[in-house]
């Protein structure tokens, strides 16, 4: 393994190794949940008994409408379009993770370089970028997503890529800010001057400093963004934008179609997709929070063990006290 990769791994895993009971538990349970969903997403074609828009069984029979959970349909069937709920949930998992993965990666690849450039060059470019990014950051993310989804649906259609790109805009500012601020402080740090004074090269110093700091904060930001993205994607689907029903299964859309069922007491069409969302978002949040707890020293408390004093005689013998009789 190259030294860069090894160092990155070391930095990334150090908070994990430093975690104590509680934080480690949070981190672990979060990772387990997320891993489960990733597995489901990857193995979707083999796990789901039906396709996401399939209305007849392979034998040619029509799938019943709004049927409660049974042996043939583990989570029941929908009341719109007669789909198998279990399959929709599994395919929806794949959709969600694809979109979110795209969005987080894209925003990383946009935000980090922009941050470095902006922080390093400074001047009017920096000022404009900071203004734009701050405005984007302050804007409610759902509204932003609606706007961009609207704009992009004409160009890119209603599939995974379109939704992913629409969500990217929301998260770019966060990476930009962190990286830019780190770059600026690295540029201005006095020890950079000192290092330069002894002849170290400019970009080596900055590179190392940046690398370390960014590596520490990116995982936390990334996971929390992913958690937010799942929710935002579902919201878009709920509102009828984002992923279009013809392109893929999406949990939020299913929930919207399940609303009328609720007043009629039909529960399986809505409860299961929603549960999937809750679990995945919770898992991602737990990972993010677990990482955050370990990396944020102000919230850490030095643990003092409860303690009882040993009897004096024992100590005295060790220290040699009182051995001389006077």
């Amino acid at each position, binding site marked *: 393994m190259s030294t860069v990769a090894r160092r990155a791994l070391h930095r990334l895993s150090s908070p994990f190794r430093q975690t104590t009971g*509680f934080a480690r538990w949070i981190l672990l349970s979060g990772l387990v949940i997320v891993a489960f969903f990733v597995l489901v997403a990857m193995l979707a074609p083999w796990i789901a008994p039906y396709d996401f828009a399939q209305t007849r069984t392979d034998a040619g029979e029509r799938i019943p409408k709004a049927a409660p959970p049974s042996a043939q349909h583990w989570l029941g069937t929908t009341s719109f379009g007669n789909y198998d709920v279990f399959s929709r949930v599994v395919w929806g998992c794949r959709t969600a993770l694809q979109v979110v993965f795209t969005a987080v990666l894209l925003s990383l690849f946009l935000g980090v370089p922009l941050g470095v450039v902006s922080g390093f060059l400074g001047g009017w470019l920096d000022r404009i970028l900071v203004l734009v990014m701050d405005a984007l950051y*302050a*804007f*409610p*993310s*759902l*509204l932003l997503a*609606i*706007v961009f989804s*609207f704009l992009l649906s004409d160009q890119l259609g209603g599939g995974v890529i379109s939704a992913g790109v629409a969500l990217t805009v929301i998260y770019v500012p966060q990476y930009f800010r962190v990286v830019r601020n780190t770059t600026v402080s690295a540029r201005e740090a006095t020890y950079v001057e000192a290092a330069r004074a002894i002849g170290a090269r400019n970009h080596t110093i900055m590179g190392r400093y940046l690398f370390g700091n960014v590596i520490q904060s990116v995982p936390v930001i990334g996971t929390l963004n992913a*958690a937010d993205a799942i*929710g935002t994607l*579902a*919201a878009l689907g*709920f*509102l*009828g*934008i984002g992923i279009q029903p013809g392109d893929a299964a999406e949990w*939020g859309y299913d*929930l*919207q179609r*399940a*609303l009328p*069922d*609720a*007043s*009629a*007491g*039909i*529960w399986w069409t*809505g*409860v299961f997709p*929603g549960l999937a*969302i*809750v679990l995945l*978002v*919770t898992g991602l*949040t*737990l990972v993010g*929070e677990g990482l955050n707890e370990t990396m944020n020293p*102000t*919230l850490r*408390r030095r643990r003092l063990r409860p303690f009882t004093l040993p009897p004096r005689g024992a100590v005295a013998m060790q220290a040699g006290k009182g051995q001389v009789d006077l």
Partner: protein
Amino acid sequence: MFVQYLDYLRDVATLNFGETITDNRPVIEIVQNHGGATLTLSVAAFAVALLIGLPLGVIAGRLRDTIPDLVIRVFGIVTYAAPVFYWGLLFQLLFSGILGVLPSSGAASPITIFQVEPVTHILLLDAAIAANGDAVLDVLEHLLMPAMTLGLLLSGIFIRLVRVNVLQSLQGDYIEAARARGIKESRVLRSHALRNALVPVVTVIGLQIALLLSGAILTEATFNWPGIGNELVQYINLRDYAAVQGIITMFAVVVVVVSILIDIVNALIDPRVRY
């Protein structure tokens, strides 16, 4: 293009957000007629969130790393993890579908809407002004579930933030100094830790306005609540770009105004902040 932008800014300053394409309504009229409903929902939801979030956050902060703390924190995470419309669906399932005690859509039954005169365009107030007890009850009945739904979402955030603030306050040196003067623990908690913890919370509440807006839009869609958010959703479905742009711009303006207000409130509360 630059001139166009200036014109647009001028329009916004005079509260002219344009007109919808599909039915030629001025956006400002939409705001007038439906703003009251959104406002009612927001205020009610805020009240619910504070009622749930503040005490739980304080308890979690005080009893750090114990079982109650854990439970409360998980609760906070889960309420935020679930999309607000999922909570809406669950509430509707329970209270409308299974128990059948609460209405699942609209702000009031048709009779009430017919009877009550729109004076302030805020249905609850109008019903109160008209001294129509049945109407008031009807509106409250319809308000309960949406308010609980949105309130639950917001409470998750409050719990987390209040808890962190209480924790940081309790570590303050002035806490130790107060204990050294013999101040009782309960008093230390109340007037030192709590008070100092709540100051940043006011700012935080203001920062949640973005969340409140998104949540309100989705909640209104879920319960067919006749607020601005519901209108927005309908125009989205009609692909009416002018309407969507106008309403979202209006929301942006609201966010900015509220932020400024919060800054002012903060300056009033915290004696260290002086402009």
